[in-house]
């Protein structure tokens, strides 16, 4: 017969306690860190590529040409994220038109990095980290690991035309540069959009700031998000969605989305797009396809609606387009976000619409620039 053995009462004590408090903070402001940094070139005025005046550009007397930036002053302020990723965002911009492809782009180029002494003479070569051939984009951005690097060298061996280069711009946030890249914007629209949003658009009143600088001015702080233009002359609904037709193994739209490191794709279907009267179904299905591509590449699609205008084709054709733009935002929250309400803005400011009822006036272009900048400012650093 088993005996029951009484167990002693266990000693008990209160459990130890951890007590603490802390804060979670969003990334710091995105700064344009390359502005005014030491730069040299094989010919021409290299400093034009890093000054604050986008109307002054660097051109070289011939090819091959190199431009070499000393990154030592700011490199140490770029903090790698947990994976050791230390990105460098480089924009090579067609500054005047804002077109996807146009004068000023480099067809073939390399980007090299060098650990040569920061205080010595600029190196003439380094380790190649980027090689591009057959580039069609007038604005490009690359991510470069700057760990231990003092110099970045761009070497251009083929250009589509006499190039104009003014975009040796690197942005990084206060703590993690990767965030600055994710907060960048690729702006896709028609010629009206491209012209008014270019780095240095011609014919606008005053001296327009770049979109990044305009966002900085709106927020009143050192916040200069990178932007990449991808305008298409005469882009209409049909031509916009022809971007979804296969081009090799991909599509123009997909290629444009895939090539940018930026996290935001701004779709600016313009007044041209509504004049073709293609209706709701084609517009909506095209937008869904664009949304799907953005999802594939982990991008956020921002929809800016069609500006108000009074051209007959625009008035008669826009209803289906407008509804499709509303529905794509409603049906895919989080992935598709409503941007600027350009219809209401230009309806309330009809003086900004030119005599053809489609294009903006000079002041209308400047207003458009401010409107889009204000939306980018609202979305902030990767929010």
């Amino acid at each position, binding site marked *: 017969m088993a005996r029951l053995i009484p167990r002693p009462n266990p*000693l*008990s*004590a*209160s*459990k*130890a*306690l*951890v*007590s*603490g*408090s*802390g*804060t*979670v*903070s*969003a*990334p710091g402001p995105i700064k344009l860190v390359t502005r005014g940094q030491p730069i040299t070139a094989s010919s021409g005025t290299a400093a034009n590529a890093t000054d604050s005046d986008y109307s002054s550009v660097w051109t070289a007397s011939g090819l091959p040409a190199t431009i070499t930036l000393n990154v030592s002053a700011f490199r140490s302020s770029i*903090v790698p*994220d*947990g*994976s050791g990723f230390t990105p460098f965002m480089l924009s090579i911009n067609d500054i005047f038109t804002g077109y996807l492809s146009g004068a000023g782009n480099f067809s073939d180029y390399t980007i090299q990095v060098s650990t040569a002494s920061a205080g010595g003479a600029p190196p003439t070569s380094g380790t190649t980290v980027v090689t591009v051939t057959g580039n069609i984009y007038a604005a490009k951005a690359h991510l470069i690991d700057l760990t231990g690097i003092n110099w970045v060298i761009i070497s251009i061996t083929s250009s589509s035309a006499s190039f104009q280069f003014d975009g040796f711009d690197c942005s990084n*946030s206060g*703590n*993690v540069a*990767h*965030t600055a890249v*994710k907060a960048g914007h690729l702006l896709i629209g028609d010629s009206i959009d491209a012209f008014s949003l270019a780095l240095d658009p011609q014919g606008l009143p005053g001296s327009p700031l770049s979109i990044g600088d305009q966002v900085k001015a709106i927020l009143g702080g050192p916040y200069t998000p990178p932007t990449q233009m991808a305008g298409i002359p005469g882009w209409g609904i049909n031509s916009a969605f022809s971007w979804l037709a296969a081009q090799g193994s991909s599509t123009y739209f997909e290629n444009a989305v895939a090539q940018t490191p930026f996290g935001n794709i701004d779709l600016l279907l313009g007044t041209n797009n509504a004049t073709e009267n293609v209706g709701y179904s084609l517009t909506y299905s095209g937008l869904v396809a664009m949304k799907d591509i953005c999802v594939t590449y982990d991008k956020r699609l921002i929809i800016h609606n069609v500006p108000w205008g009074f051209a007959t084709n625009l008035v008669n054709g826009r209803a289906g387009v407008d509804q499709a733009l509303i529905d794509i935002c409603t049906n895919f929250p989080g992935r598709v976000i409503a941007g600027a309400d350009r219809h209401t803005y230009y309806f309330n400011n009809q003086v900004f619409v030119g005599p053809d009822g489609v294009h903006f006036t000079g002041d209308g272009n400047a207003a458009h620039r401010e409107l889009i900048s204000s939306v980018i400012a609202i979305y902030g*650093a*990767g929010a």
Partner: protein
Amino acid sequence: MATTLTTAARNAACDAVVDLLDIGSTDATGDIAFSTSAPATLATNNLANPAFGSSSTGVATAGTIAQGTVSGSSNPSTVALALFRNRNNVEVFRCAVAVSGSDINLSGVSVNDGDTIDITSLTYTQPA
């Protein structure tokens, strides 16, 4: 009856635990791994070395804690745990994290890559 620790015993118990964070040689300091409930690490805040000061009436106060930066988040991910690890990255103890009413209260627990976590106060208490 419940056991009651003397102050000396409380201090000894408290110091014994927090001093475990200083053991190891892989890293210069122990750390706090702020993690999801899984747990999956979202940010690592390095502790001082020693991590905590000497216990007084059963309470040890942490030294300066370095800022941690969030990475590997699902953008967003939710911070739910704080794993206290020694210099060899071996867990010593863990506690809960929330916005309020928890062991460690943060201003927010929904975090994205690039967010930073700063700890403004931290104590370890061995009750009587």
